């Protein structure tokens, strides 16, 4: 089953104004949400906060209620070996499989280092990408495991 590797990432639009991040963090806190992976991507005067959390649906509704602009994005989480070259191993296997990493960021949620990856989906479905990743010998984290 490839769908168990589909991880729901929250992508939250965040204007570059003082206090925005604190406000977002407060919503996570108020909803007792545990964040397993998190990053802020920034462009010219605005950003997108990306987060993998344990209660995505509940917190999505909480953000919407506060008029935030947000969306679920399907990502995968790849285990990396905790030795020099761990990232290279992942990146080169993606390359060899013809998978384009649009962006990636590290997570501390499992016992081993994990890389959250958004695969460019212009010419491949998530299911097909998951199959290719597994076939390359890499280990993917199941959505259920991310939430611990």
């Amino acid at each position: 089953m490839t769908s168990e590797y589909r991880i729901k990432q929250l992508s939250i639009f965040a204007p570059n104004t003082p206090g925005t991040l604190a406000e977002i963090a407060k919503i996570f806190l108020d909803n007792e949400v545990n964040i397993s992976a998190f990053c802020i991507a920034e462009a010219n005067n605005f950003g997108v906060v990306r987060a993998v959390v344990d209660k995505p649906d509940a917190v999505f509704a909480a953000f919407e209620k506060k008029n935030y602009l947000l969306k679920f994005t399907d990502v995968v989480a790849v285990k990396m070996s905790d030795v020099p070259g761990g990232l290279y191993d992942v990146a080169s296997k993606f390359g060899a499989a013809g998978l384009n990493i649009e962006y990636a960021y590290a997570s501390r949620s499992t016992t081993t280092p994990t890389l959250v990856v958004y695969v460019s989906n212009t010419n491949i479905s998530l299911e097909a990408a998951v199959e290719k990743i597994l076939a390359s010998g890499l280990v993917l984290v199941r959505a259920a495991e991310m939430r611990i």
Partner: protein
Amino acid sequence: MFWNEKMETLRGKELQELQLKRLKETVARTQNIGFYQKMFAEAGIRPEDIKTLDDLSKIPFTKKADLRGGYPFGFLAVPMSRINRIHTTSGTTGKPTVVAYTKNDLNSWSELIARNLTMVGLREGDMFQNASNYSLFTGGLGFHYGAERIGCAVVPAGVGNTKRQIEMIQDFGVNAIHCTPSYAMHLTEVAEDMHANLDSLRIGVFGAEAWSENMRRDLENRLNIKAYDSYGMSELFGPGVAFECPEQDGLHIWHDCYIVEIIDPKTGEVLPAGEKGEMVVTPLVKEAMPLLRYRTGDITMLMEDDCPCGRGQKIARLFGRSDDMLTVRGINVFPSQIEHVLKNIPEVGDQFMVYIDRVNHLDEMTIDVEINKHLFSGELSDLARLQNKIGKALHETLTLRANVQLVEPGSLPRFEGKAKRVVDRRTI
């Protein structure tokens, strides 16, 4: 269908004779006003010198500032005992301009509104919701009496309390609404949120600010109505001076009541049909406050083609108001141009704001744009692409670079009444 077919379709010699007769009467009336006595003396002309319509060009222009100088009643051509109503125009600086009406003026004005509303399909028995300011602003009472005149049931809703406005449309079965286009947009959003059923609504009459074809399409689709542009100005009675017919291609201005000239705003030279310039209007049936060659400050042009509806020569929808015109780095910009660009980009939401600053002696234009909630992908790269796309489209139209800031839907101010989308923060 016509309200006054003879006058609405009058043309050629018959029209010119009527215009000349009324122009002479108007010139005579202006001689009761100190300002015009002085103007004629200084220009070396006498009222009798106006023998043909072409002689109009001998008369100097009257400007908005001249009227302000006459505050409050310096431009009255009749004794106060004949005044039946007073309105004022919102002055952005200092005192407002007072406009006054005799009984005949009020009658002429509502006649014009009756023509307009009949032209777009309103009939006796229709219900007309006037979501317009009823106080000193001419939009409220002007439309009110015109709609009553054709036999509509008028709902004098006034401005604000949008939910209540929507409930009335729904519960009363309102057929037509009049308001500003930006308020119509706000009403649409709220109605959609309320899942209101506005099926009875057929006609929207929108005026008092410039609005684009895209905004029209948007309002027509979302409210399932026909939306018509209304033009007017308090100094020329108020709304109803010019109005779109069902062709929705330019506005019929009532030539039996107004002589229209288009001039080069810099040189004052009169321009031919098809050329864009400032509209100068000489009203022909105003008693209390006759005006000659009044500079409206509105940029439009006389259209060359006849209209299939049979009425007279049209003016184009406004390109902008010279008061609204911004000069940024020496380039003339109209907020309506910005709106037009943004409305053509689907990922852009409903509202925008323009800020002009001076940074290191250079003008900087910043435009805050709401994102369309339904087209947000969650991807930073898509947003960056959108930001670029907006910047490029604006640059193409305005020949000016602008900083585009993307903001969340619902975060920019909504306007009830005249939208103030431009904030000029430059200090000189």
